[in-house]
């Protein structure tokens, strides 16, 4: 078992003819992901590494019965691509693209409410169920099939956590990068819910960072609803204040948003905290021992 994606997931690639799109399509195919088609307007009929290209998501879905999509198109067109995928009936949309305007994402978020689509990202590494399906840009070889779920706002920090677990022979059920943008699809809480319900996931790692209140919401959910142990690392403890956050924005979060505030909230919810990024693996080892969980 796993969450959201498995060996039966049928994936199309939006932006398959671009530099990133074509490179990562090959990587996904090599990993064993069922890539059934690609989309690139005006390029129908072409093949990319043996994968047929279609003009639109609707055409691709009709021809391939795809149920998931991964988006590599440039930021100015990414919001429209997400909505195209939702319109075509895609159930899981993974948007890798970085730099989408905030207001575009606000509009997309409202648009998706009227569809059955779930969005992962944008500005994320994607999702992987090791040994079955890799959708995104993560290096496949660091992963190992197993029973720990990972949820992360950062791409590269996800890899860091994965590698530390794999190096200690702790495999992963599913690893989700939820993305670093302020407005995104699946949240920490959404992913925690799914992992709590997945019988094959025994424990969860969350990688958070400063800004927003996703980690505080996660802490509240964990305290009330999670039975499985959770380990967390929050990055940005040494980040200078106010460098990225808008003036009035800092008020709206009302004291939420600092690394220490998030760590405190998670700790109070019973989460084991890795204080430095190199301690994620060790903290999980100890947590599993403490809960008597054998993998």
């Amino acid at each position: 078992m796993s969450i959201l994606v498995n060996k039966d997931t049928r994936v199309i690639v939006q932006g398959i003819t671009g530099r990133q799109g074509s490179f990562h399509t090959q990587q996904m195919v090599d990993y064993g992901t069922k890539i059934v088609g690609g989309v690139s307007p005006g390029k129908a009929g072409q093949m990319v590494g043996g994968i047929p290209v279609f003009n639109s998501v609707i055409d691709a879905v009709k021809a391939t019965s795809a149920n998931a999509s991964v988006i590599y198109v440039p930021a100015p067109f990414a919001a429209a691509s997400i909505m195209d995928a939702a319109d075509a009936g895609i159930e899981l949309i993974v948007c890798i693209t970085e730099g989408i305007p905030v207001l575009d994402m606000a509009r997309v978020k409202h648009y998706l409410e009227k569809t059955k689509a779930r969005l992962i990202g944008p500005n994320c590494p994607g999702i992987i169920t090791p040994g079955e399906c890799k959708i995104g840009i993560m290096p496949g070889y660091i992963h190992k099939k197993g029973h720990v779920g990972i949820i992360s706002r950062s791409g590269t920090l996800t890899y860091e956590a994965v590698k530390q677990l794999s190096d200690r022979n702790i495999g992963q059920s599913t690893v989700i990068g939820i993305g670093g943008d302020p407005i995104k699809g699946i949240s920490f809480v959404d992913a925690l819910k799914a992992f709590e319900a997945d019988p094959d996931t025994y424990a969860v790692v969350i990688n958070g960072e400063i800004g927003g209140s996703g980690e505080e919401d996660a802490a509240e959910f964990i305290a009330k609803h999670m039975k499985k142990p959770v380990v967390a690392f929050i990055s940005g403890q040494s980040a200078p204040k106010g460098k990225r956050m808008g003036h009035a924005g800092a008020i709206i979060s009302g004291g939420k948003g600092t690394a220490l505030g998030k760590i405190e909230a998670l700790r109070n919810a019973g989460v084991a905290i890795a204080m430095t990024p190199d301690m994620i693996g060790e903290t999980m080892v100890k947590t599993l021992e403490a809960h008597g969980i054998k993998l």
Partner: protein
Amino acid sequence: MKIHEYQAITLLKAYGLPVPRGILAETPEEAKKAATTLADCVIKAQIHSGGRGKAGGIKLAKNPDEAYKLASEIIGMTLVTKQTGPEGKRVRKVLVTEKIDVKKEFYLSVTGDNEHAGIVIVASADGGTEIEETAATHPERIIQVPVSVITGFQVSEGNPVAKAFGLTGALKNELINILSGMVKLYLEKDCSLVEINPLVLTKDDHLLILDAKINFDDNALFRHPELAELRDINEEDPKEYKASQHDLNYVTLDGNIGCLVNGAGLAMATMDIIKNFGGKPANFLDVGGSATTEKVKVAFQILLSDPNVDAIFINIFGGIMKCDVIAQGVVDAAKEIGISIPVVVRLEGTNVTLGREILKKSGLALISASDMADGARKAIAAAKEASR
């Protein structure tokens, strides 16, 4: 992106909002000339920071000669405010505005409400003071009204603000016009903040915008070429500016270990671990997902151009970013500019074997690290040695 007060005022005026008469001056002569048309006037330093008044950057002039004198004092001075940091910001121009007799001051802003994928109006009857201060001392005096990005501002959303400000009748209509214009501007120009502080009630009973601040979403600048010319690079850290020209995400810090990392999360975590092990990061630098060899080279140059940097820690976990690209960029930069300080490299992820090979073949004296913690420790040790 931030802009100056005078630019914000011009934009608000273009959206039909009430602003005072004002003239930009870059020399005392221009300030004097402006003052002759304005009678009593206020000379306001134009820098990208709040708290200018307290720092001595806003002065009242009673006549053109006084305007000349005050402008000659303010232009060229370095203002240190709560927001500028101890190094302050040099004033290059002033805004000369008519003096307004004020009965009351209010605070108004429109900003993002990411949690609800919307925007929000923030208002307080305590204008003129910094909103952070009000939030800390009298949070109950701040109200927030959510606004949909789909429908934009609805007249009824002005009611709670009018009530908080105690405005009715014609003044309430003026307020609603201002709120509507602020939201319209926010949505049309992809802002991240439109702030009016203070909005004032004048002696003759009208609302007027005395000071304003507008920030834009950098990600959306591609569709607003008209905003590009509002950028004032004099206000930016030169290293941060150079980085932004190459799509690199760079923030100057005060330590001595330069960091070159891919991914914002890992870049922050790298700073954290350096600090945790007793070192001090000189910067945050995320080379991003789609970096080219050329971009990595620029990133490396920026780090080497910082005289505070005693050692460099390159921490890469390749996903979309391939290790061989990073490696080639480092080698190219090192060969072109030469490296006089120790460089610690940790490579992992996509194409890692290729990347390590490139570094090895280059013959450069790089210190290789097995993981992030190892790299941080080696960089701290190398920096200590080098700064001796």
